[in-house]
């Protein structure tokens, strides 16, 4: 019984009128923790009751402290009938369990009712006394810190990165229990909220235990998700990166320090489950589920791997084996580098990192994006205590990712994330990350000293381009690509295009600004059931990924850029369609060759009118490219001398746009040579589809002047942020009215939906110009048959147009600024020395143009041979379908190689102020890991909240829009209130991970579930040395942007 929880109910305000007769309320409060309940006195006839209760004390195990929320229920006393509930507050007391976080929770919380929304507020005080019990870590993991932030938190230094932690728990969904038929919607919603709160507590505790086992003290990049599987249950799962963090003394600038000690983090081998070999285990699992538990109608695991041409056959024939074969792995063997690191990394089951930005020097090379998907049929989870099936599914996917990374010559995956999309009984599991090579020094235990042996790793590549250098062996490449010597250092080979899921390393050398690039795609599918459905879906997946990829590549070229960061590809499944949305931030990395243009080719050149048409289109494309170059201020340094070793690029390079028909080629022979690349990204107009595609290419409107947008943390090329910050969430649902939709019609609708959303943001935020929308995170869903839902969360930040010295001058102290300066310098230096024709060498593969196309998409997926592969896949699928009746259908595709960036991010922080007034603390929210202009001095704990809202008077609440609008506003309010009660004044790394809306306008009903998370922090203006006392409201002026 190692803890005592104490709670005191102080007062209420703005309570609703519960007694019509008197227009007043007789309120009292129940405080519940575990199975113990206390009550306050009734405060008669008041809408602003003062209870000033005694301290209610709960003596509990710390295990319960971690799992259970404190539940506060406000009721209206009724002498004659049952007391009416006014609403509830759930308080997660986890932050109090960690000595470094909050010490008391105190403040006004909105009283929330799932039917009526917020109904007044209650002032509560909560404290925890932990007894000093040495055994307490046995079941609980109090003290392990959690961070949603996917970089090393700002006031910490990383001593060691231990690696991947994951866990999942399952349960029955109360909404689907028999009892739900007889209880009220309110009771059912509350049961669900409470269950999920319990499950996330438990999950967090279990992950914490794993971290302790590994010797760590924190989880960074903690990502928790819910899978509402309906009948089959409720899954709460989480992944993260275990680390040992040291708190920096508050005075020092966190960033700097972090960077200074980059070498620190050896990975403990703690988590190694000794070489489970990827290949086998998935097999095993697959089989197991098939045979052993007949209940699972799972699937044939057919795997479509688009990525590695090499691996395909293997994979196929092995059947479900996910493993890349050993042979592959042996292949690249780039260097010592690998060998060394391998030892450390390979001992881990999954050398994955959920981080997206890293301490300087951590990231050595980036291979590219790896991803895997698998289609599963859901079945009831029979025994919640043994969530093995779900575990096995994820295990399978992770193995696959791991093997893809190996194929890219990489030993680790960074920027790793997992997601699901569920429609009825079909579930698509997806995972993706960026294959990379990490500095071994971080991986080994005991090499904290810089002086260590590893010098040779550091030497070769300058930080500004090192991460771009290929990690694989150029003679034995996993996929066809065109390599050139790095345009920056000229010593190592680089690919022509780089895709990654991570943030751009701050030290990367870029030219101009970046921009958001999205590929959008809809595919109709027939309605089907069970395995047939799963098979149909898994057959569609590779085509969708391919299409998305092609679109990304084309759009990248069109913007004259050569690298994508923060790539996220979502595929959502509905009854009759699949939606695919890929978002990333394009930039021009000066280390990579300049992208070629896009050339249009008609299939039948003979036709004159056609030719004319083609010319027009070509002209439009060229114009667009030129315009974009100007728009994004891309002025790559010219290369004056020929790049060593790479033969002269032809003056124009083009790359070829791929259409799916391309056949594969063996350009392998040429690949290794950087020669002979012809440029050319050729777009063939051979059918109407092609024309459509080109049109859609050109329809993406650039942001209006004064606006920039990206989905990464920061925008390359913008450094002087001001403190004006406006975080927002926007949701649109489109009803497809037309019954006979074609794929193309759908694509247009979907594209317009996304584009219009962006336009709308630009308009609404026009007062913030010059402004950048950062971390634009789009989530798509198909909530019902004819509905497409797009939800976006992002932050708009203003910056100073004139960049400047003075700016830098003001913030001399912070590391941020020094970074800024560095970054500014890079391009200049480049200008000075680089030379050569400005044309870039884009690779052209002489042989088969289409395959050449591959090059542009740097993806590990080689589309060049796509057609071949497809046919193989199809065959395979067919085969599988025959042979395997049950089992999971699985597709995987891994894409792109890209190089991630070393960490370091340049953010210049500017002062952020909160404005505030009255008694309400201003709480800023942002999806980024920082607030410009401020310094985070304390992390108060993780915010992870789940809410359900339901209404039976939809019309009266203003229809679905009114309903959702107020619900989102309420969620924000509750997040802010919890942060303020912890003593914080901001939420960083905020995200809305779920927004599930179900409506039935005919019955005048709707229900919505929202899950949000983030890190509560205290931050101070950069100029201030004193922490601001967080609980008091700081009167600050609202930044203009906040309008």
């Amino acid at each position, binding site marked *: 019984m190692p803890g005592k929880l104490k709670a005191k109910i102080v007062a209420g305000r703005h309570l609703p009128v519960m007694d019509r007769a008197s227009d007043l309320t007789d309120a009292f409060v129940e405080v519940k923790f575990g199975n113990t309940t206390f009550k306050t006195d009734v405060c008669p006839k008041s809408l602003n009751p003062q209870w000033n209760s005694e301290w209610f004390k709960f003596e509990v195990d710390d295990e319960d402290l971690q799992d259970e929320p404190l539940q506060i229920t406000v009721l209206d006393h009724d002498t004659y009938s049952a007391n009416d509930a006014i609403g509830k507050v759930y308080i997660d007391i986890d932050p109090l369990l960690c000595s470094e976080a909050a010490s008391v929770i105190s403040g006004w919380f909105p009283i929330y009712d799932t039917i009526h929304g917020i109904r007044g507020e209650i002032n509560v005080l909560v404290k925890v006394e932990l007894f000093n019990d040495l055994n307490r870590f046995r079941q609980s993991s109090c003290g392990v810190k959690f961070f949603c932030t996917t970089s090393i938190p700002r006031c910490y230094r990383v001593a060691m990165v231990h690696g991947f932690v994951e866990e999942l728990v399952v349960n029955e969904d109360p909404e689907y229990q028999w009892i739900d038929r007889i209880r009220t919607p309110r009771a059912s919603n509350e049961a669900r909220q409470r269950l999920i709160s319990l499950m996330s507590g438990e999950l967090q505790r279990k992950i914490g235990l794993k971290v302790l086992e590994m010797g760590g003290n924190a989880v960074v990049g903690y990502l928790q998700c819910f899978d509402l599987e309906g009948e089959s249950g409720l899954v709460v799962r989480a992944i993260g990166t275990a680390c040992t963090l040291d708190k920096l003394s508050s005075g020092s600038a966190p960033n700097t320090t972090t960077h200074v000690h980059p070498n620190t983090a050896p990975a403990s081998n703690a988590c190694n489950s000794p070489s489970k070999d990827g290949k086998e285990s998935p097999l095993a699992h697959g089989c197991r589920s098939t045979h052993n538990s007949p209940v699972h109608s799972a699937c044939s695991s057919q795997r479509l791997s688009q990525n590695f041409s090499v691996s395909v056959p293997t994979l196929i024939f092995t059947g479900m084996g996910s493993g890349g074969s050993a042979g592959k792995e042996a292949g690249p063997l780039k260097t010592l580098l690998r060998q060394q690191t391998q030892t450390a990394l390979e001992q881990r089951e999954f050398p994955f990192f959920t981080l997206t930005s890293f301490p300087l020097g951590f990231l050595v090379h980036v291979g590219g994006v790896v991803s895997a998907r698998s289609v599963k049929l859901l079945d009831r989870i029979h025994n919640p205590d043994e969530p093995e099936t779900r575990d096995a599914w994820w295990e399978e996917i992770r193995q696959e990712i791991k093997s893809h990374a190996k194929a890219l010559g990489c030993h680790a995956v960074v920027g790793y994330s997992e997601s699901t999309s569920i429609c009825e009984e079909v579930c698509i599991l997806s995972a993706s990350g960026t294959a990379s090579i990490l500095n071994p020094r971080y991986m080994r235990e005991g090499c904290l000293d810089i002086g260590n042996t590893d010098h040779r790793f550091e030497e070769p590549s300058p930080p500004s381009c090192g991460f771009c250098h290929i990690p694989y062996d150029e003679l034995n490449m996993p996929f066809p690509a065109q390599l050139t010597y790095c345009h920056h250092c000229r010593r190592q080979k680089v690919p022509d295009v780089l895709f990654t899921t991570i943030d751009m390393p701050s030290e990367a050398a870029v030219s101009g600004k970046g921009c958001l690039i999205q590929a959008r795609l809809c595919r109709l599918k027939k309605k089907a059931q069970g395995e047939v459905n799963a098979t149909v879906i898994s057959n569609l997946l590779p085509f969708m990924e391919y299409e998305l990829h092609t679109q990304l590549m084309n759009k990248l070229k069109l913007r004259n850029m050569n690298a994508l960061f923060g790539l996220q590809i979502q595929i959502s499944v509905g009854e009759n369609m699949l939606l695919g949305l890929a978002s990333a931030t394009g930039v021009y990395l000066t280390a990579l060759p300049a992208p070629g243009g896009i050339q249009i080719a008609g299939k039948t050149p003979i036709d004159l009118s056609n030719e004319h048409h083609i010319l027009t289109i070509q002209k439009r494309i060229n114009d667009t490219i030129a315009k974009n170059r100007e728009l994004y201020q891309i002025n790559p340094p010219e290369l004056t001398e020929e790049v060593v070793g790479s033969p002269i690029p032809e003056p124009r390079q083009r790359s070829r746009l791929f259409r799916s028909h391309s056949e594969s080629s063996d350009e392998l022979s040429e690949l290794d040579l950087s020669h002979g690349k012809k440029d050319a990204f050729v777009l063939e107009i051979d059918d109407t589809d092609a024309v459509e595609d080109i049109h859609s290419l050109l329809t993406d409107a650039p942001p209006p002047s004064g606006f920039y947008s990206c989905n990464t943390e920061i925008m390359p090329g913008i450094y002087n942020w001001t403190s004006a910050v406006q975080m*927002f969430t926007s949701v649109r649902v489109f009803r497809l*009215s037309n019954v006979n939709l074609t794929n193309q019609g759908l694509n247009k609708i979907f594209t317009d939906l996304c584009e*219009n959303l962006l336009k709308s*943001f630009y308009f609404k935020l026009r007062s913030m110009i010059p402004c950048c929308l950062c971390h634009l995170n789009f989530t798509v869903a198909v909530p019902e048959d004819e509905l497409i839902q797009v939800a976006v969360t992002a932050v708009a930040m203003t910056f100073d147009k004139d960049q400047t010295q003075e700016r830098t001058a003001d913030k001399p102290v912070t590391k941020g600024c020094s970074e800024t300066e560095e970054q500014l310098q890079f391009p200049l230096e480049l200008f000075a020395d680089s030379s050569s024709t400005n044309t870039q060498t884009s690779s052209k593969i002489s042989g088969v143009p289409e395959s050449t196309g591959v090059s542009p998409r740097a993806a590990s997926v080689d589309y060049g041979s796509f057609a071949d592969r497809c046919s193989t896949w199809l065959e395979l699928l067919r085969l599988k379908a025959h042979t395997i009746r049950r089992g999971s259908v699985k597709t995987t595709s891994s894409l792109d190689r890209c190089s991630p960036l070393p960490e370091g991010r340049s953010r210049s922080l500017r002062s952020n102020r909160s404005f505030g007034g009255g008694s309400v603390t201003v709480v800023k929210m942002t999806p980024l890991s920082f607030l410009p202009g401020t310094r985070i001095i304390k992390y108060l704990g993780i915010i992870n909240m789940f809410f359900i809202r339901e209404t039976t008077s939809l019309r009266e609440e203003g229809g679905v829009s009114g309903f959702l609008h107020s619900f989102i506003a309420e969620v*924000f*309010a509750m997040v*802010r209130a919890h942060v303020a009660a912890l003593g914080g004044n901001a939420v960083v790394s905020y995200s809305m991970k779920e927004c599930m809306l179900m409506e039935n306008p005919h019955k005048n009903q709707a229900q919505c579930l929202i899950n949000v998370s983030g890190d509560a922090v205290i931050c101070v203006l950069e100029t201030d040395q004193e922490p601001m006392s967080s609980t008091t409201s700081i009167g600050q002026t609202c930044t203009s942007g906040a309008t």
Partner: protein
Amino acid sequence: MTSHNRNLVLKGGWDKVVNEMAMELDVFVGNTTIMDEEVYQLWLDGYTVNDAVKVRMEGGVLEECEASADVLLSDTMDQYRTFQMCERLLHSPAKLANQLLFQIPPHRQAVLIERYYTFDDAFVREVLGKKLSKGTKKDLDDISAKTAVTLKSCRRQFDNFKRVFKVVEELKGPLVENIRQHFLLSDKLARDYAAIVFFANNRFETGKRKLQYITFQDFAFCAGQLINNWTVGAVDNMVEDMDVDLDKEFLQELKELKVLITDKDLLDQHKSLVCTALRGKTKAFNEMEANFKNLSRGLVNIAAKLTNTKDVRDFFIDLVEKFIEPCRSDRWTAADMRLYLTHYTNSAHILDTFKHQVVWDRYMGVVKSCIFKMYHD
């Protein structure tokens, strides 16, 4: 209008159709609540979403921002929803500062409140002095038609009056201060509301044709004078309703002033004092001399009758009929008026048999400044 409609459709084109036909849901929520002041004003003025979109388009926002009509529509709807959600809070503005639902910077809160409580002069002129009851509310249709203020806006304004009235009715302390603290209004607006409450409470007649030329601001000024000098609060500042009800004792005392017109000697003496002072100083001297008795009777009779509620209601119409109109027909200038009233008031002090100096000053001080204010075209 129709051409506008057409434009709207043409400009919006397909997008517009999409938005209207198929956008099932469209919301945008900022952590800091986003409010456009222009849209807020349109909302306050009772424009429908579509009309507001038209107005905004005419205003040229679109061109400025490279946006299309559907963007404007979506933005307008969002904002209208936000305002509707805020409206409940605006009804008790103090809540706006400590509610948690919307994060709104304080200066913006102040703007929201001030604008919400701002009213149209045309509208208030129609309602001023009327009972703030359901009956009056029913007449809002007509008022809306007459003043060209939308019905929705009329309702908001009327409800504001009523709400303020109800709240301050039960409060002790100075009226203006109560209004300002309770509704967080600017001093100016709080004074205007005090006037409205005061007029409504005493049911002053302001609607007669003869009073039409008097603006709300004139009345508000007069109300301020009455509140500061004739109410209970003017003497004792901790009484309920102190600023809303006239001081009964004072009204009673006013009867004593009748001596000025009933006592012939006094009347003559008063007249000669005034005429002596005025002689040679104004062109209207002859008219003043000729009308002195009439005018003096008028003013004193008004004072003497104020114990009757009915006559209190007619206070302003009486001032106009008994004093302002005769003067105006004699073509007194404003300066003449000033001169005359000053001497008329002061001369009474010299009358040795006149004992009611204090009451006289309290009465004439207010009447004088009201007449000055009301004496214009």
